[in-house]
């Protein structure tokens, strides 16, 4: 089982149920989890708390989408380089390429993964 003791994870997901379940799973693995329900909130949180070990980022978000969040993070020297895993429910080739070009460490499709698989993927990035 993954151990995220001492690690801070930002979970950006607008579907409250998905966010709740994934957050609980991460907390069970000892992570400190902050949740954001839209892109605007995510950017605000990251700018005021620049020490996240990982951001789990949905793409289709209200207000500001996931790619815009990544662009905003890349434009700020203080938070640029924060590891990001995209959690989408599509996975079209152009989305994956764009995510990778913006610096995503992984592009995961929620619909084909279990919670354990997502946690394992996060553990690969947070070492």
């Amino acid at each position: 089982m993954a151990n995220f003791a001492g690690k801070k994870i930002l979970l950006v997901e607008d579907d409250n149920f998905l966010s709740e379940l994934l957050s609980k799973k991460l907390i069970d693995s000892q992570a400190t989890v902050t949740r954001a329900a839209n892109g605007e909130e995510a950017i605000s949180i990251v700018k005021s708390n620049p020490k996240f070990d990982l951001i789990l980022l949905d793409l289709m978000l209200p207000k500001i989408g996931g790619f815009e969040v990544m662009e905003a993070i890349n434009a700020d020297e203080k938070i640029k380089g924060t590891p990001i895993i995209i959690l989408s429910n599509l996975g079209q080739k152009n989305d994956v390429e764009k995510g990778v070009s913006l610096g995503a460490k992984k592009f995961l499709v929620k619909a084909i993964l279990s919670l354990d698989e997502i946690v394992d993927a996060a553990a690969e990035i947070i070492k």
Partner: protein
Amino acid sequence: MNLFSIFGQGGNSHGARNSDSSPFKETYILALVHKLRTPLSGARWGLDMALKNKECKDRDVLNESYNKIIEALNTIGEILKAAEMDSNERFTNLRKEKINFCVIIDGILKDLDYLVKEKNINLQYDRECDPQTIFGDKKLLYLSLTNIFDNAFRYSPNGTVTVIMSEEGNMAKLVLQDNGIGIEKDDLKHMFEKFYRGKNAKELDQTQNGLGLFATRKIIEMHKGSIKIESEFNKGTKVEVKLPID
């Protein structure tokens, strides 16, 4: 976020929707796929969590519910694949690499082990496979071949499925032989049509949707391979796939 906010206006210059327009249809399908996958992902994860709770009651019912959701998610994946094939987007850019054919088959059998057990299949597979290197899109080939194995297992309950790997000239050959429900002669010529399902198959399993062989053949042919199906009603089916060796 409703469908139309994802969907946008679309349509022709008069603002009316033109359902024959390919990019329009693809955007619509992507929006639908996203709308379906989100709640189903939630249901899947929720059930997964409930089943892992030691005090879980009605485990059998929850387990079956979980399996149904996986089936629904798989179907949505097939719809997405079919939409991609219609738009030809994905299939002009195969991500080719050297692949060990035996390793792909081993992986598929491992992933479908649950179905082998569920359908009580006697699986005959000589795992002493000579490595055959093919050059192809690993993910797409995996998906297309998984479909063939899935069909063999699903439509041969309590039966035998034999897997034979060999070489024929410069082609790697996979033969999958089952003694399952077979395909009626009238259905056989339609088997590779999108959404077509044989009468026999529909009677046995109503949860499948018939997208699989259409996608399977398309992927194999894109790799300059071939797929052939021979079958006899209530006796069994033989599927032969050939792919060029690298």
